[in-house]
């Protein structure tokens, strides 16, 4: 298990390095002078040279990459070209908002999607199963920014129940929670459908296995068979799906944060790309990739924890 974890972490670090190399290569290969794009055509050559130097773009690409990782190891992700604030501070300011948004969305999706999937299986072939099926496919098909805009119209503009923009007052939990409801629901909605479908499909397969018949032959109540004997096995593919999906949840956070003007990683990175603020782009991408890789590793370790057969494969 430990050897497996070490191997996965090593592989994760390699992915980080490869992603950053790709990012630097992209900056190097994109045509046009970033300083001209950022400063406009009427900037003086001195000013342009200054900007190029501050972003380190006068150095060879391989040297830029080595410098980036050397600094990153000491916790220095570079400086915002415009405000001169450390990128690590900017990311740390924006990250909690995005993580809270993503995790709340995921929690909502799991808390509603998993029971819906189970209900579908317990009532298979009935009207309830059909309704859940149609609704699931329906919500999967609706993009999260559409949900964001419509919920904004209904709940913020017409009904005035929830705030339209921002992340709520700092330190005021109630106001932060209120500001979180719509963006999180916008992201979660489609995932509720995904998870319900996924749980139903893998659960149907598990319910046909002989050990379920054993549990039935001992007269265990159906809810217990579904929630303990079948779900423990059926949830495993769902965990893999959710781990991969968290990447897409964080990227849909970019749109949703834009619609609700929520400060977060999504907003940080969009602004940085628009102003050619390369150190901010690089630092943010590094952190997001690290988070994504960690989640994938955590999901695999969780699967090994849930399924003793997988655990033994890693042990051996």
């Amino acid at each position: 298990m430990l050897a497996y974890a070490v191997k996965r972490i090593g592989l994760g670090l390699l992915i980080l390095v490869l992603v950053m190399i790709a990012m630097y290569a992209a900056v190097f290969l994109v045509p046009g002078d970033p300083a001209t794009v950022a400063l406009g055509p009427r900037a003086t050559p001195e000013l342009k040279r200054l900007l190029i130097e501050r972003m380190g773009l006068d150095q060879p690409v391989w040297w830029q990459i080595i410098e980036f990782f050397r600094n990153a190891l000491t916790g220095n992700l570079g400086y915002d070209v415009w405000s001169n604030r450390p990128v690590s501070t900017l990311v740390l300011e924006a990250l909690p908002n995005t993580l809270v948004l993503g995790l709340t969305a995921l929690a909502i999706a799991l808390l509603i999607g998993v029971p819906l999937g189970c209900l579908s299986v317990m009532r298979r072939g009935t009207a309830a199963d059909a309704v859940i099926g149609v609704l699931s496919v329906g919500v999967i098909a609706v993009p999260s920014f559409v949900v964001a805009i419509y919920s904004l119209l209904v709940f913020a503009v017409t009904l005035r129940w929830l705030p339209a923009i921002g992340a709520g007052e700092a330190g005021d939990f109630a106001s932060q929670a209120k500001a979180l409801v719509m963006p999180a629901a916008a992201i979660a909605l489609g995932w509720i459908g995904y998870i319900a479908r996924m749980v139903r499909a893998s659960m149907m397969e598990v319910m046909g296995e002989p050990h379920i018949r054993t549990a039935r032959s001992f007269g265990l109540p159906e809810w217990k068979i579904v929630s303990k004997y079948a779900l423990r096995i059926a949830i495993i593919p769902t965990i893999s799906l959710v781990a991969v999906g968290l990447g897409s949840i964080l990227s849909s956070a970019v749109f949703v944060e834009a619609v609700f003007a929520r400060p977060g990683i999504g907003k940080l990175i969009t602004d940085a790309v628009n102003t050619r603020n390369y150190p901010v782009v690089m630092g943010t991408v590094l952190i997001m990739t690290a988070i994504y890789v960690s989640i994938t590793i955590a999901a695999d370790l969780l699967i090994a924890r849930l399924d003793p057969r997988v655990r033994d494969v890693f042990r051996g």
Partner: protein
Amino acid sequence: MSGSLAASGLSVRYETPHGAVHALRHVDIEAHPGEVIGIVGESGCGKSTLVTALANLLPANARVDGSISYNGIDLAKLDAHRQRLLRGDEIALVSQDPMTAFNPVLTIGDQLVDFQHHRRDLGRAQKRARIAAMLGRVGIADAERRMRSYPHELSGGMRQRVAIAAALLTDPGLLIADEPTTALDVTMEAQIIHLLRELRRDYNGIIIVVSHHLGVIAELCDRVYVMYAGEVVEGGAVDAIFHDARHPYTQALLACDPARFHERLDRLPTIPGSLPSLAQLPSGCVYAPRCERSFAPCGTIAPPLVTLLGSHVARCHAVTP
């Protein structure tokens, strides 16, 4: 608590998109406390449908006619909830394949605790103590450690012992062992038969053993029912069936048992032909198309159940009391 079991006129058909499959027809069997009953027949003869019906585990597309009376209650007429309450309390099933019978992601101890859910009077620690004692009784050493094991960490024979222990933990009045040794190798089979023989000494409920293996039936059972194409064709005391078989199918089945040949044969004997389709049954005797002794009425009239000596019965036109 233990009582007698009697199925009378029991028929089960499965409704499928291609028409009804008549898996079980007018089956009459009975069993009394302390008896071990064998059910024997080739694959597809309805053995599994019969025990599944007795254990109230038939799938939703099954239609049941006739009655299954256990301890004076008609199981076939109980609602789903009452049926569930009987399962794992009064009626326990040891399923066919010990490799897949347990949940792979829960420990043995965890599952066996759950299986005692009818015992609301016991706490978790008491249930675990009962499991440890029962595992010891079925010959599993180091019971405490085995309770923390997952099913895949146990050998096939050990898992079958656990399955038997699980069934016994519920103190059932009716214990059904569906092909308890089929998935095991010969050594394990002998051990499990030995275990079942030991257990029947201090068990006073009914045991039903299903097998296609005549040796298993002969060693374990008091009485045996021979099934063919969803019908009981012959039934009676083990001695009567093995030494005085009257139905041509039973005779042919015994003649094909390799264990009964003393010298080596070049070719093992077989029964020519194959089982009739359970969707379109012949109008007369189900065995007539394969029977050496079939005569005029066999093809058109279904034979009645003829009572011979004692509990010995046979469903054949050629048999006379």
